[in-house]
């Protein structure tokens, strides 16, 4: 008899649930209110004084640790020539670049100043594991809340993070001016 009564109780539960409002956030008619808790693709963090200059010291730890080889970094030591064979940004998905001494992660005691020329993220491959954010010694990488992404080709998900930083700096300047 208890079993039979539990059947009725079950029906009451689902009956009540039928009348309750949706839990689904019905995008695009509704949007999530707590976007800060979402993990989007990574973005560069600027230094405090200059919103266009990233904290990045071009140590290449993130490039090395990324399990999907999403990150490509271009940098140079001021005064030295930029590395010859790789001038422009290379965004080759799934092809490992040939081993080059210039792209090795920097030793921890190396105090050479390096300047970031380009930071590209191939978001097609990124698994949002966070190893890059975790391994950055100066916390130059952070997760953005840029989650409403839709594109028609792979190119739409190949981000130039240095350019994004500069765009954000530019728009902040515009906001401040206004």
């Amino acid at each position, binding site marked *: 008899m208890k079993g039979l009564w539990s059947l009725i109780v079950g029906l009451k539960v*689902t009956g009540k649930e039928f009348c309750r409002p949706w839990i689904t956030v019905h995008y695009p008619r509704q949007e999530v209110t707590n976007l800060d808790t979402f993990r989007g693709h990574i973005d560069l963090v600027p230094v405090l004084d200059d919103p266009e200059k990233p904290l990045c010291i071009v140590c290449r730890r993130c490039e090395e640790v990324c399990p999907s080889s999403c990150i490509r970094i271009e940098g140079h030591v001021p005064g030295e020539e930029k590395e010859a064979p790789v001038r422009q940004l290379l965004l080759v998905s799934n092809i490992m670049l040939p081993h080059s001494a210039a792209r090795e992660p920097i030793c921890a005691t190396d105090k050479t100043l390096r300047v970031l020329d380009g930071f590209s993220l191939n978001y097609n491959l990124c698994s949002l594991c966070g190893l890059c954010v975790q391994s950055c010694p100066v916390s130059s990488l952070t997760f953005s809340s840029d989650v409403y992404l839709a594109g028609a080709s792979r190119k739409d998900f190949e981000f130039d993070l240095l350019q994004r930083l500069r765009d954000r700096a530019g728009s902040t300047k515009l906001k401040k001016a206004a």
Partner: protein
Amino acid sequence: MLPLVHLIVALIAILTFIALNGLILVYVERKVAGFIQRRPGPFEVGPHGLLQPLADALKLVGKQLVMPRGADRILFWVAPLLSFAPVAICLLPIPFGPHLLGLDVNLGLLLVLAFSGLNVLALCLAGWGSNNKYALLGAARAVAQSVAYEIPLLLSVLCVAFTCGSLSFVDITASQTRGLLSWNVFSQPLAFLIFFVSALAETNRAPFDLPEAESELTAGFHTEYSGMGFGLFFLAEYSYMIVVSAVASVLFLGGWSGPFFSGHWWMLGKIYTLILIMMWFRWTYPRVRFDQLLNICWKWLIPLSLINLLGTALIINLVR
């Protein structure tokens, strides 16, 4: 001549009714499932997802008809047709309104029960004709389920036949027109429950949907069917739901009669209420294991329905 015309018109009306219901019920099922799970259900295709069933139908019709190698060509393609064909005949003797009757036979009940048994044969053919051992096992289990639950179905229906003294749907409806309390559900509540549970098992529905669940997990009798073959099985399932709800409404809930303003709207209301309750059951109860399924039938439903039948026979003999 006139009876033939009447029959043809009734058949066309019933086929239209079935087709429309197929569309509507698919939509309602998905919406009800969504709301019970606190999500919207189909929403994008058409306003509030109203055109979703059309899109589904177009998809099913447009798919390639694939037959596995070594499958028995005739049996394979006859199975879905055999599953769907008896539905029209099953709906003919059921009175939808005081003047809405396709075929006035005095053995209407027997007709419906006989033709709905053809569904079991369709399952057999589908499982055997697929040349797939998993489909065959799935079909064997589905057939065992259907055959087992035929017995309590028949016994509970017999109780109603005893009280009304006729197997004709028209007579049974007529015996329930004397007000709300003359409905058979008040004089035979146990028979109604047994009928409803057996009907759920017969249509492979709700907690007894082992044949379909198997096709999600390992295999079931309709594994090898894609496109329209599957579409026909699917449509047949919803149509049998209507048949079974219509029979339950006529036998136990008074058919087209109501306490006020009797008519076909009462019949439709009862059919759809029963179908909604079937959907409610589906999204409430977990699936019954095969041995539990047969145990419920053999240990509970059959003895209960036999006792009910004996009790009914006894009371009728004492009263008369």
